[in-house]
C-alpha cells in the first residue's frame, strides 16, 4: 500500500469503527426492557428533544460559559505567574511547598469550602474550575520558561531586546509548546469540574440535568446528558488540537527538520 492509501484506510477505519459500535448497541438494546439500559433509539430521541436546542439556552450555555470563564481565567493567571516563577530560582524555591500543597488537594474537597465562602452561584463554579485548571498550566509554564536555552537570553541582551518584545516574541513563544501541553490537560479537567460543581449545588447546567434526570428516574434523559458530555469533551479536544497545530506549526516543522 502506498503511504497515502494507508492514511486513507486508517482514516476510514477511524470513522467506521464508532459507527459499527453504535449500530451494534442500537440493535442490541432495541428490544431492551431493562429500566437502566433503555433502547438507544429512546436515548437519541431524548437527546434530540432536549439538546437540539430546547435546553441549549437553559443548561448547555450556562455550563459552557462557566467552563470557558474558569478555564481562560486559569490560563491567564497561570501563564503570568508561571513566567515570573520560571524566571527566578529563588522565588520558585520559596513558593514550591505552597504550590505542591495546593495542587495536591483533590479539587472536589474544596467544594464545601467554596460553597460556604463564595455561595452556590456561578462564581463558586468558576472558582472551582479555575482553581483546578491552574496547576497543569502553571507547572508547565514554569518548566517551559526555566528550560529556555541560555543562548536566547544572550541574544536578547546582545541585540537590546527587552520588555514586551522580549516577553512576547522570545520567552513565551519558546515556552509555548510546554504551555500548550498544560492547557490541554487542563481542558479535560475543566469539563470534569464543570460537571461535578453542577452536581453539588446548582439549578441548571448539564451536570445538574444528568443528576436531576436520574433522581426523577428519567433514565433515557440521563443517558442523553451523558452522551452530550462525551460529545462535548470530544469536540473540545479536537478544537484544541486544531488550534494547537496552527499555533505550534513552527515547532513541528523545527522538530522534523532537526531529525532529518
Amino acid at each position, binding site marked *: 500500500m502506498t503511504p497515502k492509501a494507508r492514511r486513507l484506510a486508517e482514516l476510514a477505519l477511524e470513522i467506521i469503527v464508532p459507527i459499527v459500535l453504535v449500530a451494534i448497541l442500537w440493535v442490541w438494546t432495541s428490544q431492551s426492557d431493562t429500566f437502566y439500559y433503555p433502547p438507544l433509539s429512546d436515548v437519541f430521541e431524548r437527546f434530540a428533544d432536549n439538546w437540539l436546542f430546547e435546553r441549549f439556552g437553559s443548561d448547555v450555555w450556562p455550563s459552557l460559559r462557566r467552563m470557558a470563564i474558569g478555564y481562560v481565567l486559569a490560563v491567564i493567571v497561570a501563564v503570568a505567574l508561571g513566567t515570573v516563577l520560571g524566571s527566578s530560582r529563588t522565588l520558585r524555591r520559596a513558593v514550591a511547598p505552597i504550590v505542591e500543597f495546593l495542587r495536591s488537594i483533590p479539587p472536589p474537597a474544596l467544594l464545601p469550602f467554596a460553597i460556604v465562602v463564595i455561595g452556590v452561584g456561578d462564581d463558586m463554579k468558576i472558582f472551582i474550575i479555575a482553581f483546578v485548571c491552574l496547576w497543569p498550566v502553571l507547572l508547565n509554564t514554569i518548566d517551559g520558561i526555566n528550560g529556555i*536555552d541560555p*543562548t*536566547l537570553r*544572550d*541574544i536578547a*541582551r*546582545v*541585540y*537590546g*531586546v*527587552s520588555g514586551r*518584545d522580549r516577553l512576547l*516574541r*522570545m520567552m513565551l*513563544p*519558546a515556552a*509555548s509548546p510546554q504551555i500548550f501541553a498544560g492547557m490541554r490537560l487542563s481542558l479535560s479537567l475543566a469539563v470534569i469540574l464543570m460537571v461535578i460543581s453542577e452536581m453539588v449545588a446548582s439549578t441548571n447546567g448539564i451536570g445538574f440535568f444528568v443528576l436531576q434526570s436520574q433522581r426523577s428516574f428519567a433514565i433515557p434523559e440521563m443517558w442523553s446528558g451523558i452522551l452530550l458530555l462525551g460529545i462535548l469533551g470530544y469536540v473540545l479536544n479536537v478544537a484544541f488540537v486544531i488550534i494547537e497545530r496552527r499555533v505550534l506549526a*513552527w*515547532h513541528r*516543522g*523545527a522538530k*522534523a*527538520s*532537526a531529525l532529518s
Partner: protein
Amino acid sequence: MLEIEHLGKVYGEGKDATHAIGDVSFELAEREFVCVVGPSGCGKTTLLKCMSGLLAPTTGEVRLRGRRIVDPPPEMALVFQEYSRSLLPWMTVRGNVLLPLRHKKLEKAERTRIVEEAVGAVGLERFIDRYPWELSGGMQQRVAIARALAYQPEILLMDEPFASVDAQTRGDLEDLILEVRERFDMTILFVTHDIDESVYLADRIVVLTPSPTEVREILDVGLPRPRDQVETKELPEFAHLRAHVYRLIKRQEDAAAA
C-alpha cells in the same frame, strides 16, 4: 577601538576554582579584521563572552573607545556558533532579522529597507518569508549574519560561526563575510579553531595558549586583498603563515598532552 586589558576569568571559588582565562591583552584597531585561534578548549567562548559584556571578567577589563564594557554595547553585534539555537524558529527570516531593530525608533519603511538590505547582502532575498528550519545549515548561518548586519554594528564578534557547516559552504561564507565587511565598514573579531580560516580572513591573528589562556603570539597577515579562495591560498606566504600558526598550536597541544 576595542581594548582587552589583562582580562582573566575564574569560575568557582577556592579549591574548585577553574582558571579559564589567565591573562589576555590585545586590541583591535578601527576596521581591523582580527582572528583569535587557539587549541580546542582554550576558553575562546569565555573570552568572547567577556568581550561582549555578557560575562563579567574576574580581573582586567574590556574597553570600547575608552568606555568600559559592562553590558553588551549597542555598537556591537554577536554571531553565535550554533545557528540552530540562536535563530528563533517561530519567526520567519524577516522576523528574525527585524528582531534587533524593533526597539530602535525608526519609520516602518526604513525598517523594512534595512531588513531587506541585510537579507540581500547575504543573498537570501528569495527566502525572506521562509522559516529558518526550512533552510540549510549554511543558509541559517547567513540569516544569523543578516540579523547582525541589520543591527548596524560598528564591531562584529563571531564565535566559530562556520564550525558546523560543510567545507564548500564554509568557503562561501568566508568570502561573504569579507564582502560584507567591505560594504558595511565594520571591525570584526572572529574566533575560530581552523588555522586556514584564520589566515585567509585576518589582518592580524591572535594565537592563544591552552587554559588558563594567555596570548601566545600576535602575527600580522600581510596577504593582499581582495582575497581569493584559490589564489590567496596558493601564495607562499599563506603556506608559511599557516605552518607557523600550526606549529604554535601543535607544540602547545603536545606539551599539554605530555
